[in-house]
């Protein structure tokens, strides 16, 4: 199906100006032109030639010409199919780009007195006319006319056109969620947006170019490989060109058709034909995972990454802490502590509060809302709680805050209690948790600390295994967190990361990246905030979250539309897969030459030197059928390998040695054996053609 739609593209690519970009296939193209000319001329020049002392049937040159054209076409087809996959996606993106009308603020936009642009003069212009720095107003139901940052307001935005995610997201001015993308729709409220991209250079424009493969630049490894393939091709061209002068002395010259056939069989056509398809398909695999790579270089660098910087929150742990245990002080009933803690958290809307109620419920303590006054958390008091109608006050919060609350009436707490609390909080901190002290003031009773709630960062399941996998691939993971070193160390240990950076500021991150790079490491990181931008730009692979600011997106070389930081690991995988696929097909292509030699060389000179028949180890029918079979195999193998090129070689996280052994066995040894079998089978069919 894909093949059918790609077929016209394959023919269009026969244009020599396009063919020229791929030197290996250009040689085949020239060979096809030459043999076709020969096939046409032969009847006028006295019939089909004999070659190397053996007569060949009249249809020989024609058959070779046809199969050479097919070889070129198959290569073009592979590229066209790879490009075709991106085309559909580009089409749907293009729709979002269709010109919309924008309400542009004319004249001066006054950010201080009229931030909402309520009184400003608005002018309806086409979105194509928007320039960098223009300010537009977008109301509910309208499409955002271009990429920009919200300077005023908050709105829910439907970004499904870009991310495919149907749930709307909240975008607001200031902070790390201020970036909006052109072509997305505002669902509610009204926002003022400052345009940050030039026309034609918007995010969507770049995305279209990327998925269509138009913006694809060759990566360093691809360039190096092309050079190696070109060098091999030059050697084989020399071999072919020098063969006849030498043969003319010692044997009899070979026909030009056979020489071309030899040349085409020897040059690495398999990898030459599929090289660009592999690259395009690699980018496409990223796009399918909703990652946009701004350059192919970044994708390749991802495969080489040796250090991964991962943010703790959201990547290694779930976003929120959860209560994991109640630690009552000596002489307090466990039930008493959990009841008080649950009551104090009843009206607490944070996930931490909810998790305390949940944990109490799990321990069989059910509390129901019974009125009373909620004391919310403030930055000053650093605690929250509930005042019951009977005068009982319940509080939970940081240890020092609770102590000073209890000692507010002048009576100090017994030092034994303070020592006990400190011992527990210390212990909890050391294990990576956050201690939450619970206290009670009831009328007629001295104020009392009941115990401590152990809040814990929950490490995502299966991460330790993934990090171990990364380690075996030679990748070191470093956790970045704002936590204190004690907590950070504990979480790092639980998650199984190799190292951590505690109390990290954006500057610390930058310093860490520089230090790693000085040691020759390649660093990958994710980030979303504007203050991440320098680090994102410094990292070899910087993945910006789509929810992040436009500064972050500008600085990174990839954007993750799903804003999922764990995807970094997938990106590394895809980068490696890309390289392996190229390496595998190169090895296969060159290994194939051995069998092709055993098919063609005896066929070339058996007429003069019958002794060379011992080299015909495949027992091919006749010299003509041997040469044709080799050419047919050479063409068909391209088609057979297209799925592999598009899908990529399966990547397993094994050590370098094991991976190499495996791939050498499959593509090296397999590449030697496969053509022996293939050419023999094709020869069995070809030998049925009269004359061959």
């Amino acid at each position, binding site marked *: 199906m894909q093949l059918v739609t790609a077929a016209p593209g394959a023919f269009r690519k026969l244009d020599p100006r396009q063919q020229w970009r791929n030197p290996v296939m250009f040689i085949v193209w020239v060979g096809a032109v030459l043999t076709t000319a020969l096939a046409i001329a032969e009847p006028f020049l006295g019939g089909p030639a004999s070659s190397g002392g053996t007569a060949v049937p009249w249809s020989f040159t024609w058959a070779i010409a046809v199969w050479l054209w097919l070889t070129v076409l198959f290569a073009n087809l592979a590229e066209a199919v790879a490009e075709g996959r991106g085309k559909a996606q580009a089409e749907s993106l293009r729709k979002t780009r269709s010109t919309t009308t924008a309400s542009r603020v004319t004249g001066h936009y006054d950010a201080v007195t009229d931030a909402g642009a309520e009184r400003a003069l608005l002018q309806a212009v086409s979105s194509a006319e928007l320039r960098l720095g223009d300010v537009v107003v977008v109301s509910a139901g309208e499409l955002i006319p271009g990429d920009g940052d919200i300077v005023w307001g908050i709105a829910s935005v439907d970004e499904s056109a870009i991310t495919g995610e149907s749930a709307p997201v909240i975008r607001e001015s200031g902070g790390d969620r201020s970036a909006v993308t052109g072509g997305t729709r505002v669902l509610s409220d009204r926002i003022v947006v400052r345009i940050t991209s030039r026309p034609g250079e918007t995010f969507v424009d770049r995305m279209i170019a990327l998925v269509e493969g138009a913006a694809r630049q060759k990566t360093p490894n691809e360039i190096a490989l092309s050079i190696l393939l070109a060098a091999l091709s030059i050697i084989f061209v020399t071999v072919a060109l020098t063969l006849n002068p030498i043969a003319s002395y010692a044997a009899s010259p070979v026909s030009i058709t056979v020489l071309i056939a*030899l040349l085409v069989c020897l040059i690495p056509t398999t990898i030459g034909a599929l090289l660009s398809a592999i690259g395009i398909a690699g980018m496409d695999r990223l796009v399918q995972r909703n990652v946009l790579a701004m350059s192919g270089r970044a994708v390749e660098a991802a495969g080489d990454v040796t250090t991964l910087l991962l943010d703790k929150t959201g990547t290694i742990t779930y976003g929120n802490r959860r209560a994991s245990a109640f630690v009552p002080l000596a002489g307090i009933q466990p039930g008493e502590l959990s009841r008080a803690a649950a009551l104090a958290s009843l009206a607490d809307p944070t996930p931490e509060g909810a998790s305390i109620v949940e944990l109490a419920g799990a321990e069989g303590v059910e509390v129901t809302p019974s009125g009373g006054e909620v004391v919310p958390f403030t930055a000053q008091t650093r605690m929250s709680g509930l005042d019951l109608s009977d005068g009982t006050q319940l509080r939970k919060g940081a240890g020092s805050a609770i102590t000073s609350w209890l000692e507010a009436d002048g009576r100090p707490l017994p030092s034994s209690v303070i020592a006990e609390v400190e011992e527990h909080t210390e212990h909890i901190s050391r294990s990576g948790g956050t201690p939450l002290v619970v206290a009670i003031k009831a009328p007629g009773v001295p104020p009392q600390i009941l115990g401590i709630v152990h809040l814990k960062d929950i490490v995502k399941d299966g991460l330790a295994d993934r990090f171990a996998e990364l380690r075996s691939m030679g990748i070191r993971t470093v956790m970045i967190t704002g936590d204190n070193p004690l907590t950070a160390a504990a979480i790092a240990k639980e998650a199984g990361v190799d190292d951590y950076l505690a109390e990290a500021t954006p500057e610390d991150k930058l310093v860490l990246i520089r230090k790693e790079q000085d040691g020759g490491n390649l660093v990958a990181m994710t980030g979303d905030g504007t203050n991440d931008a320098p680090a994102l730009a410094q990292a070899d692979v910087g993945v910006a979250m789509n929810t992040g600011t436009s500064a972050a997106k500008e600085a990174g070389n990839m954007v993750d539309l799903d804003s999922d930081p764990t995807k970094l690991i997938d990106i590394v995988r895809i980068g490696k897969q890309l390289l392996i696929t190229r390496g595998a097909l190169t090895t296969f292509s060159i290994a194939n030459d051995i069998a092709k030699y055993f098919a063609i060389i005896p066929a070339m000179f058996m007429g003069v030197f019958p002794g060379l028949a011992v080299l015909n180890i495949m027992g091919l029918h006749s010299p003509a059928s041997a040469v044709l079979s080799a050419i047919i195999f050479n063409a068909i193998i391209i088609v057979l390998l297209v799925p592999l090129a598009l899908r990529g070689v399966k990547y397993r996280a094994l050590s370098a040695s094991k991976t190499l052994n495996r791939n050498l066995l499959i593509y090296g040894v397999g590449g030697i054996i496969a053509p022996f079998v293939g050419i023999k089978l094709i020869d069995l069919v070809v030998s049925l053609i009269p004359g061959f």
Partner: protein
Amino acid sequence: MGWLFAIAALATVALFLAVVHRPLGDYMAWVYSAPKHWKIERGIYRLIGVDAKSEQTWQAYLRGVLAFSAVGLLLVYGLQRLQWWLPYSLGLPAPSEHLSFNTAASFVGNTNWQSYSGELTLGYTVQFAGLAVQNFVSAAVGMAVAIALVRGFTYRRSGTIGNFWTDLVRGTIRILLPIAAIGAIVLLAGGVIQNFNGFTEVSTLTGGAQSIPGGPVASQEVIKLLGTNGGGFFNTNSAHPFENPTAWTNVVEVLLMLVIPFSLPRTFGRLVGDKRQGYAILVVMGVLFVASFAILTAIESGGMGTAPQLAGGAMEGKEQRFGIIGSTLFSTTSTGTSTGAVNAMHDSYTALGGMIPMLNMMLGEVAPGGVGSGLYGLLVLAVIAVFVAGLLIGRTPEYLGKKIGPREIKLASLYILVMPILVLTGTALSFAIPGVRDEVTSVSIWNPGVHGMSEVLYAFTSAANNNGSAFAGLTANTPWLNVTLGLAILLGRFVPIVLVLALAGSLAAQDKVPATAGTLPTHRPQFIGLLTVVTVLVTALTFFPVLTLGPLAEGLL
């Protein structure tokens, strides 16, 4: 029985090398990295007016190599053209322009292809002041270039790759001269001659008159072998009893050829700080060498045909005192090391047997190759092997902590292009240009047909690989062959050197990437196997067609 003898011979060689390679390899590492200059060395630097203190960029290093070699070329050419006026010329006239060019190119390019007939063309002055000097310094140049490439791997973020003049002078004075002195004494003890007698006229038993040449043979002989040069004092080279009198001097000569090429990997391992890397290279060289020796010995021992059966072996062109195994060991060594000395006539080997020395050269002289050139040749192939392996494991390839990127691959690819193009186009042009073809087929080729083609192919293979041995049936002293073979020698020597030094510069400029679990270890059997296969495959794919027209066609008839 023959096999036991072959194994014993090989074991003797292996044992000697096993003992000697460590101290010699370590010593050479010290020579090239020691900070202090010897007094005599400082004198030489002052004499030739070079700055030996500062390190050079790769371009400056290259300019040194090229300028030094160009001066050498002019000097050897001039000495030959002026021979008539020189003392101790033994009354010999100046060789023709094209022959002088060929000889000059040949000795400056560490090839020692001899279109001339040793004792009958050149007098003592040219032999000493021209050829013997080049025997030393052309070898030292090869070693210097190899060391410069090794520095590319060891230096970090450096704009320089060492100092050519120090490398050249130290290689000559601290390595080649002392070993040559010891070797010459051993050869003298073995019966190799050393005199200035000129020609001695004697009457033979049958009453005929014979003119027996003398000369300073031992001193020439030792550096001919040690520096993997190969140009003999006598036309018949090491088959001549004055050069190689007995079976045991034969073994000594084999060892002299092998000792530096097989010790340099140890030097390499020492300098890069990981001896295992050196041993990996050493094993690849050793495997190819042993395989080649085994195949050649098997073919020659099983030589078919009436004459060999009557003679009890394929003894045509071999010396009775060396026998088949003494000959095949010497041939394998000589063609495997780019020496090109012969103690038996390769042209007279069986058809398939003659292909093996040719294949040894076609490998690009890496088994173990010439002094220096063998090491840098194999390191370039290692760069290619690492690149393919790197792709297969999904990482930008790196070798010894240096990334192999587009620039490195470009240089390595060009390196492997040079030799096949020179060999194939040289051979093809000899048959393609009408006037030349007539001359080549009527004057040069002794055996018409397939074997004649092999002779021409062998000549260009030998020249482009800087070997110097020949299928001696070919008369090479013609304008066409003298000039083209001379050019093949110069291009085959200096174009790769340009590329290797550029590669060294490019590697030295890089920082070192630390090894992780994801880095491919390049000292394990796996990589050794891969490198061996890459080396053989590149050669096989390039030369299979032309070999089928030569030795294969002849041998499979």
